Each structure stands twice: as structure tokens, then as C-alpha cells.
């Protein structure tokens, strides 16, 4: 790709975003929209400046929860998928449970976990994130493990490879791009889960709890400042997931 094309690709959304902010500011100021309805971008920016150390600290807590849950859920998802691909029994036991987990609304789990583990620990939030992450990673990994090209299966049969060699040389490496797709999908979802889990009590140290308490105290611009920080955190996880996927699969081309 040429430098100019890259510049255009980056510049276009940036210009668009700035235009939206300007329009927002003008509409709010000109029409006198009350702050509880929609604070002006300038008011939110002032709050971001004033609360910056708190924003960083709370984003660190929420990001940490999301990361711990993401890693735990990722490992659990991959291990379960490998077991499910290797044994029919495990597959029939685990698959419906994991798929059912995808239908469980995390809002339903969060208060229950908080009661179970007490409100002085991060464990309930991390558990919610883990449950949310397991599903896409499991589904995607299992699909990858099942997707063995017939010619590769024939080749390994002709080489008299053992089932373990077949898994080590073909199945597992072949599934890596699928595993990475699962990770990329799960990364931003982990942040959403970590924030939403905070809405239901427990420690008051993360972005989600700050948003709900600021809104409850009619500090609307401050609530929006924490929303902005949440968006930034979500984008960070999204980009990190994308980067990891690119790095791991860069030596391959899909054929």
C-alpha cells in the first residue's frame, strides 16, 4: 500500500470524527441542550483533563480485570476445544454447555457472582469476563481443529502417523488462525463484560462503577468522561487482539 493511500485511510475517519464533535458542540450550545440530556464535548474534555489520574487508575483496574478474564477464558476455551476435538464423549458433554453459556446474559450472572464471592474482591468481574470469552474462543478453535484438509489427512495416513503426531503436525498448527480469530473477537467483548459487571455492585474502583456513580450524582459530564475512557480501553483491546492475530498468522496465506 502506498503512503498516500494509508494517509487517506487514516485521515478520513479522523476528519469525520472531528466534524461530528464540532457539530455536537454547536448543537448543544446553540439549542441550549440541558447537561443531563447531553453535555457539550468541551465540558466532557474539561472533565477528562480534571479526572485524568483517576481515569487512568480506573481504566487500569477495569483493563486488568478484562485481561485476566481474557487470558483465563482463552486458555479454558482452547483446552476445552482440544479435548472436545479429541474425544467424542467430551465433545457431547461440553459443547452444549459452552453454547448454552453464550446464551446466558452476563447481567444475570454478575450480581450472583458478587454475592458468592463478596464485594471486596475482583473475582466476580473476572469470572464474568471469563465466561464471556470462553464461548467465541471455544467455537472458533473447535472449528479450526475439525478443518483438516483431506490431502493432509491422506498424507499423514500414508506416513503411518500416530493420532498424536497427526494432532501435533497437522491439526493443532492448522487450527492456529482459527484460535486467533476467536481471540480477536473475544478481546473487545472482554472489556464490555468487565465494565458491565461493575454496574452490579462490588468494589467501586473501575470505569463501570464510576460511570454509574457519576450518573447517579448528576455529574453528567464526568460520567461521559469515563464513557470516553471505556471506549478508549475497548479500542485498545480490539487493536491488541488484531495485532496478535496478524503477528501469529503473518507467515501464512489463505489458499
Amino acid at each position, binding site marked *: 500500500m502506498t503512503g498516500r493511500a494509508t494517509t487517506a485511510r487514516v485521515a478520513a475517519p479522523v476528519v469525520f470524527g472531528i466534524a461530528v464533535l464540532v457539530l455536537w458542540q454547536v448543537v448543544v450550545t446553540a439549542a441550549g441542550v440541558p447537561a443531563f440530556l447531553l453535555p457539550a464535548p468541551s465540558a466532557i474534555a474539561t472533565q477528562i483533563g480534571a479526572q485524568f489520574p483517576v481515569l487512568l487508575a480506573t481504566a487500569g483496574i477495569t483493563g486488568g480485570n478484562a485481561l485476566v478474564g481474557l487470558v483465563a477464558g482463552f486458555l479454558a476455551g482452547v483446552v476445552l476445544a482440544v479435548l472436545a476435538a479429541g474425544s467424542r464423549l467430551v465433545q457431547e458433554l461440553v459443547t452444549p454447555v459452552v453454547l448454552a453459556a453464550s446464551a446466558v446474559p452476563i447481567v444475570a450472572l454478575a450480581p450472583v457472582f458478587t454475592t458468592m464471592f463478596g464485594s471486596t474482591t475482583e473475582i466476580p468481574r473476572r469470572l464474568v469476563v471469563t465466561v464471556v470469552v470462553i464461548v467465541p474462543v471455544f467455537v472458533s478453535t473447535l472449528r479450526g481443529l475439525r478443518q483438516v*484438509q483431506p*490431502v*493432509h489427512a*491422506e*498424507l*499423514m*495416513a*500414508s*506416513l*503411518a*502417523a500416530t493420532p498424536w*503426531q497427526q494432532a501435533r*503436525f*497437522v491439526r493443532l*498448527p*492448522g487450527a*492456529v488462525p482459527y484460535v486467533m480469530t476467536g481471540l480477536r473477537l473475544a478481546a473487545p467483548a472482554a472489556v464490555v463484560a468487565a465494565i458491565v459487571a461493575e454496574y452490579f455492585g462490588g468494589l467501586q474502583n473501575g470505569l463501570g462503577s464510576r460511570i454509574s456513580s457519576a450518573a447517579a450524582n448528576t455529574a453528567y459530564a464526568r460520567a461521559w468522561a469515563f464513557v470516553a475512557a471505556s471506549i478508549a480501553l475497548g479500542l485498545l483491546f480490539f487493536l491488541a487482539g488484531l495485532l496478535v492475530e496478524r503477528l501469529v498468522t503473518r*507467515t*501464512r*496465506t489463505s*489458499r
Partner: protein
Amino acid sequence: MTAVSLSGVDKSFGEVRALDGIELTLGDGEFVSLIGPSGCGKSTLLRVVADLEQPTAGTVEVAGKSAHRARLDQEYGIAFQQSGLLEWRTVAENVELPLQVHGMARAERRARAAELLELVGLADFAGSRPSQLSGGMQQRVAIARALAPSPRLLLMDEPFGALDEMTRERMQAELLRIAGESGAAVLFVTHSIPEAVVLSDRVVVMSPRPGRITEIVDGRRPRPGEATDLAPDDVEDVRESGAFFSAITAVREALRKGDAV
């Protein structure tokens, strides 16, 4: 000693009789092609020799052993129409795969892969990824991989079927050289009459429903250093010789006869 010996081999898939009473022997270092219309069982026959398919009746021996024992001992190497390279491995690592499966030590594997890549003219691409190679080069890697355990027999299922005509002719010349140097017998499935004739010592013509051998025609495989009027030792000369065209005609007539039966 014979590389392959088939006797009274039948193979049925339910009601379909894919192979019927196949009798065929390949001598050491002999190049034999299987040709026939789709559904004549030529690929099935190759897969029976490879022990990827069990015959319904008859005996199959490879290098004097049962086909099953021969597969476990890596007595044969196999190449398919698709190269089937593992795209996450380098070219050299792909060639090493059969040796790795057989538990050969790393250093020994490396050395053998380097030797084979030299043989197929890809020594400079040892560290490349398969996706960086052309179709013909990928197929050469697949041949190198098939030759890795130094098999006495090479099984090839339309390995050049997906290549363009120019590349295909170049690959045929390469294969003749490689087969000559390695001394391996080759059982080669193809759709192409000229390909079968130019490569083979013998061309086995098959007919479908049920799949059986209708005729065996002498091919025109060039033998380096044994040039005669009938068989020049250069593959390009073979392609332009009258004997080449007469053999093509003989195979074509055999195919037509098989079709009429």
C-alpha cells in the same frame, strides 16, 4: 525383487466394482503409468497399493511385504494432485516431515532435506514458505518429501494435473531425472496419454465398470546412456520421435477398445 506385486485384486464400494481381477507387477526401478477414463479405478488401485484402501479380495505386496507392513515401514513415498504442503512450515521442514514422523534425529533430517532439495533444484528455497513458491515448485517440494525416507517405490496420483502445459513438460523431464537418480520404481496415475508414454516403461490401460486392465502398452521412457533409434535418451528427442507418436496411437486405440467393451 519386485517393487509391487498385485494378484487377483478386487475392490468393491457397495454395489460398485471399482477393481476387478487386477494382476500387475512392477520391477525395481520400473516406471509404470495407469491411464484410463474417470471411474476406471486407477486412483483406487494406487490407493490400494498405498494401503489407504483395503482390497475386497486378492493380495498386494510392496517390496516383498504386505501393503500394510510396507506403509508402516515407509517403503513408499506418495505425491498427490495437490502438493498438500503444510503452509506453516518452511520448505525444508515440509521435506523433513516423513522423517520426523519416523523419529529421525534433527541434524540427520536437516542434512537429508538439504540433499533432496538439491536433487529437485530448490536448494535456495529451503527457508521459504510454500505460499512463496509457484505451483510447479510446490509440486517439486512434494516430490522431495515423498523421496525423503529413500523409498524403493514412488506413488503419484496425477501430480502434474493442476500445472500448465509448459511447466508440466519441464516437471516430466525433472521427474525422469529424479526417478533415474533415486532408482525408485514409480507407479504414476495420469489422464494424459503423452505424459504416460514419455515417462513410462509400460503404460497400463484401464477401462471402467468394472475397473480392469485392458491392455499394457510399451512406453518410451528415455534411458540415459542407453539411446537406441527406438528410444533416444533425451526427453525432448523422445517427444519428437516417430516411436513416441506410434506409442500414443497404440494407447489411444487401447483406450477406445476398452471403452467399446
